[in-house]
């Protein structure tokens, strides 16, 4: 009996415990749930949120600055910028538009790569497949093509703006050079992409384009003094570009690799330098206060330029 009692006592003990726990839970459940739900009303106080965003995003100067500085994507920007530079009329937004189009092109380009084989047998069929069967395939291809054209126009207008505002002048000379290279790379990106549909348009455009390489002085077999280095159609610079003496399967593969991997990588590196230098050269150049002819200083030797944290000119008073 004692055993039974003990046993039953124990059993009742466990049962009671569970029941007690359940009762306690029933009492506190409401409160805890309420706490949790109330907590969600202020998501910025949750551990999850705080682990992602290190600063509060409320509307006070310090946090406005920190939200830019502590975000890896935004920290390309300084915390503060020249008041007048935020208007459209100075920069025309062309540099930013170019970069945005580069992102759009990378995004649509990666999606296009899922449907494309860089082989003579399949390339053209892949485009037909993309245009007729792949959901939104036509839109995808159109967007990639038009964004590429738009990017070239945006690059040119960006260069035009930088020229017209004299922004290439000291201390930004070097960044202008990086920009020129980026422009050339943009056009090469577009050009290498032209061949990829493997249609008549791309084939003849690339044929015309690479035929010029035949005539490279010294390095092309039809170029002046090409014979001097023993150039033939099978070892000259055009052969290196096409991977053959005609635009064929190897040329398609080379164009594909240049277009999808090599040039984008190079462009990304140069872009990094370009943006970095914009900041290190003192932010964007203006709109700066005008300088007068009477204020030109007599100096012939380049002097070191004191870095300023933002786009404010040295002559700002």
């Amino acid at each position: 009996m004692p055993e039974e009692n003990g046993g039953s006592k124990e059993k009742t003990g466990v049962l009671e415990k569970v029941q007690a726990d359940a009762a306690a839970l029933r009492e506190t459940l409401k409160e805890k749930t309420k706490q949790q739900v109330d907590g969600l009303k202020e998501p910025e106080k949750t551990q999850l949120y705080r682990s992602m965003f290190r600063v509060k995003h409320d509307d006070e100067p310090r946090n406005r600055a920190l939200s830019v500085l502590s975000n890896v994507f935004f920290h390309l920007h300084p915390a503060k910028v020249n008041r007048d530079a935020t208007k459209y009329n100075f920069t025309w937004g062309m540099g930013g538009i170019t970069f945005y189009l580069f992102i759009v092109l990378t995004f649509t380009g990666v999606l296009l790569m899922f449907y494309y084989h860089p082989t003579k047998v399949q390339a053209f069929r892949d485009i037909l497949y993309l245009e007729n069967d792949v959901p939104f395939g036509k839109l995808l291809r159109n967007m990639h093509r038009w964004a590429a054209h738009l990017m070239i126009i945006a690059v040119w207008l960006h260069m035009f703006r930088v020229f017209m505002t004299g922004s290439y002048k000291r201390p930004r000379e070097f960044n202008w050079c990086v920009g020129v290279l980026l422009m050339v790379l943009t056009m090469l990106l577009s050009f290498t992409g032209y061949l990829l549909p493997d249609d008549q348009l791309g084939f003849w455009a690339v044929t015309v384009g690479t035929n010029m390489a035949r005539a490279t002085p010294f390095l092309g077999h039809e170029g002046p003094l090409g014979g001097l280095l023993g150039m033939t159609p099978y070892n000259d610079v055009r052969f290196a570009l096409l991977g053959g003496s005609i635009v064929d399967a190897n040329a398609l593969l080379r164009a594909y690799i240049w277009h999808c991997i090599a040039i984008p990588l190079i462009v990304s590196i140069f872009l990094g330098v370009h943006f970095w230098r914009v900041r290190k050269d003192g932010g964007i150049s203006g709109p700066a206060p005008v300088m007068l002819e009477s204020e030109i200083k007599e100096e012939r030797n380049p002097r070191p330029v004191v870095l300023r944290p933002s786009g404010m000119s040295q002559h700002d008073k």
Partner: protein
Amino acid sequence: MDWHQLWEIASAPDNVPIVAMLFLIPFYLWYALKQGIENDKLIAILESDANLAKTKYRKTQEWDPKWEREVHTWPYLMRMEFLVAIIVTVLLMVWSLTLNAPLEEPANPNVTMNPAKAPWYFLGLQEMLVYFDPWIAGVVMPTLVIVGLMVIPYIDANPLGNGYYTYKQRRFSIWTFMFGFVGLWVLMIVIGTFIRGPGWMWFWPGRTWDAERVDYAVNRNLDQVFGIDGSWTSAIFHVTKDQGAIWARVVFGIFPLIAFFIVAAILVHWICMRTEFSRKIYQRMSLLQLVTMYTFLIFMFSLPAKILLRLVFTIHYVWVTPWFSI
């Protein structure tokens, strides 16, 4: 007037960017000059009044002494960036929904496209093939363009106009750039797109692109115009007439080239010395800067010179040598 032909060229999907550029470039040129002229007015006021120059706010933008010079990137700049990104996306979407990317027949090396055109942004180079041999048009000139652009900051000795639009303070550099960018590069793209038809022949806008058309244009080399046939050289050096003709052409061609370089150098120098301000800037330039600038400008002028020779005087080569011709 073949309106259909005109429409066919202008509405070809790949030509849309050029049609767009025909509007965009004049617009932004106007936009830049408008702000430049506003700044020039302010500069003129400040130049005439030394006291005002010390106190007045030196921008045409609105200004209140109570305002801070700098504003927070977030939200003032970034909201603009996001807005522009949205606008570009919408524009791109609409464009992509309404206009299809071109796709021709599968590539076929046996069927030549006529005209076979490079992508529109390289049409300037292709148009240059009319005036120069491929090694110049396709290799030397592009290299000069790229390097020429890169040396701009190092040869521009004018310290004014750094970071604001102006026309009066940078007349020379603006005209030079406009000449190269709009007058040569963009214009040649426009010619390559709208004017050059089958056989890369010149079709005025509205003329039907007739692939059967035959041009009887007789392009002659400059030595032929002058009747250089090598009779002198063969007599003097006792060689055959053919060999004599080769050497006579080589020697003859040097003279027009030298003449071009002299005339172009004088022209460049004259342009550089036109105003008192540009003479002042000239004084600031180092010898290396001068030589670099003059060289690139002379090479830039070689293109319009050759265009003129070819299109107006139907002259093909100026200097014919056994190794290359210019």
